[in-house]
């Protein structure tokens, strides 16, 4: 019975991230539209877009290689696995021993690697620009992310997400500057990785500024649907990561019954909604940066991560 329960919870988590991801994207768009005093499309619009794309035929460039066709499914699968590893409503899931922060970074890194290759594959100039910019952003965002992971691992004594989340929820944490710095740095990295506004604009196809959209310009039909869904899931992943690391309250432990899981689910949805509103408001009040300023933005995140680690060493050595 225990095994079935554990399998069910794990399956529920995997389904939840898949189903909730387009909803989250739709919700962020809706809040942004309301803030601009537009009515905006329905929250369910991303689902409709996905189904429409799935029905359409795929248009492939003549010189597209097998890599170009495989990449969307690969990105989708890798992102889904990574998103399902992050504890959403419950910690101590069946596969949570694999939910290592470094493993998640590696999964996302490989997805990005293949996407950048696919952008170069067809040989259009936009794809090349997009790939080179994406790799430039990644080369700064990933070290920052690793420093954040080091900080959290030093605080909690583990890189396993469930353990870190449980430690963060316990009163032992106290008031720590390093954790706060790591949170700010993680938010900055999340904005850059998801291509949200100060770094990249997800709603534009302006050739001078686009990064992510430039890489996927050649995709159509079900391939594009996979990439869009993976993009939504990546946003969900980062929001869940922030929620489970820095707001771990309400997370159901492994031994809790149905009630505990229901509370966990409700609080998770609440956190997602709050995060989405915060993201939309943030995107409304800041302006898009020039591409060349992105390196400064990300080096600030890197600096925060480094500072957090340094401060941790200082308070350790006293």
């Amino acid at each position: 019975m225990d095994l079935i329960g554990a399998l069910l919870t794990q399956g529920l988590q995997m389904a939840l991230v898949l189903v909730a991801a387009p909803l989250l994207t739709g919700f962020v768009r809706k809040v942004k539209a309301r803030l601009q005093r537009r009515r905006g499309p329905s929250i369910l619009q991303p689902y409709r877009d996905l189904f429409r794309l799935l029905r359409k035929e795929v248009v492939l460039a003549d010189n597209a290689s097998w890599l170009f066709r495989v990449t969307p499914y690969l990105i989708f699968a890798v992102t889904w696995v990574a998103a399902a590893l992050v504890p959403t409503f419950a910690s101590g899931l069946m596969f949570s021993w694999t939910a290592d922060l470094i493993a998640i970074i590696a999964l996302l890194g490989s997805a990005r690697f293949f996407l950048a290759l696919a952008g170069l594959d067809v040989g259009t100039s936009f794809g090349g620009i997009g790939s080179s910019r994406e790799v430039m952003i990644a080369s700064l965002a990933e070290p920052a992310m690793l420093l954040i992971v080091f900080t959290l691992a030093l605080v909690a004594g583990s890189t396993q997400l469930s353990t870190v989340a449980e430690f963060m929820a316990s009163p032992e944490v106290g008031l720590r500057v390093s954790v706060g710095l790591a949170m700010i740095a993680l938010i900055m990295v999340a904005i850059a990785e998801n291509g949200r506004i100060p770094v990249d604009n997800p709603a534009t196809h302006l050739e001078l500024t686009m990064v992510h959209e430039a890489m996927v310009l050649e995709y159509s039909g079900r391939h594009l649907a996979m990439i869009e869904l993976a993009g939504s899931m990546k946003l969900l992943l980062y929001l869940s990561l922030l929620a489970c690391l820095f707001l771990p309250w309400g997370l159901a432990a492994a031994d809790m019954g149905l009630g505990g899981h229901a509370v966990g689910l409700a609080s998770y949805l609440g956190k997602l909604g709050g995060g989405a509103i915060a993201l939309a408001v943030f995107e409304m009040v800041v302006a898009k940066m020039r591409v060349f300023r992105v390196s400064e933005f990300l080096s600030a995140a890197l600096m925060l991560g480094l500072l957090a680690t340094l401060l941790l060493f200082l308070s350790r050595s006293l």
Partner: protein
Amino acid sequence: MDGPMDGLIFDIAHLLAASLVLLSFVQLYQDRLYALLNTFALHAFVLACSVAWQAFIQDAPHLYITAAIALVFKAIVIPIALHRIIQRLGIHREIETVVGIGLTMLAGIALVALSMVVMLQVTAGADPLAREDLAFALAVILLGLLLMVSRRNAVSQVVGFMSLENGLVLAATGAKGMPLVVEFSVAFSILIAFVVIGIFLFRIRERFDTVDVHALDRHRGERR
């Protein structure tokens, strides 16, 4: 400093001092003059909080006066005066940095690491609270110096000087038993320095039509 409050006392002092270091980095990151001034005002406000907290935990009422001086002069009077100066001078509001901001911040990290290594070695055996306070204070001082050398605009150099002085106050309050007279004289010397710098700013501007200190180098005939 015993009892259940011990952990929290240390944590809050740590938080405030570390926020000062962080705000010094935020100052390094700014590239607009007004934003830099606002960050400086926040820096001074956090300093006032930190000093007031030290006054509370050391049970030293005269430190409250220091906190009040920091709050009134540095968080309110000097930023407003600098705002006025910028308006009167009508200077270009973007700051020209000597090297890129990313590189400056990396240098800043190196300075923070240096100050921690130095201070922890030198003060071995002292009270942990004073040790970390001194380490942070040295970091703030060095970052203020870095701000001064990495900017060409004279106004942002003034801000660097002021935030350097914030570091001195942090160090002084962390070490117990600084007499009030010394603090008064430091506070007023800072104010006088500010007035002198303000007059200099106008003089520089009159002479060279700019507050870019590069012009001074050219005037002296130095070549770069």
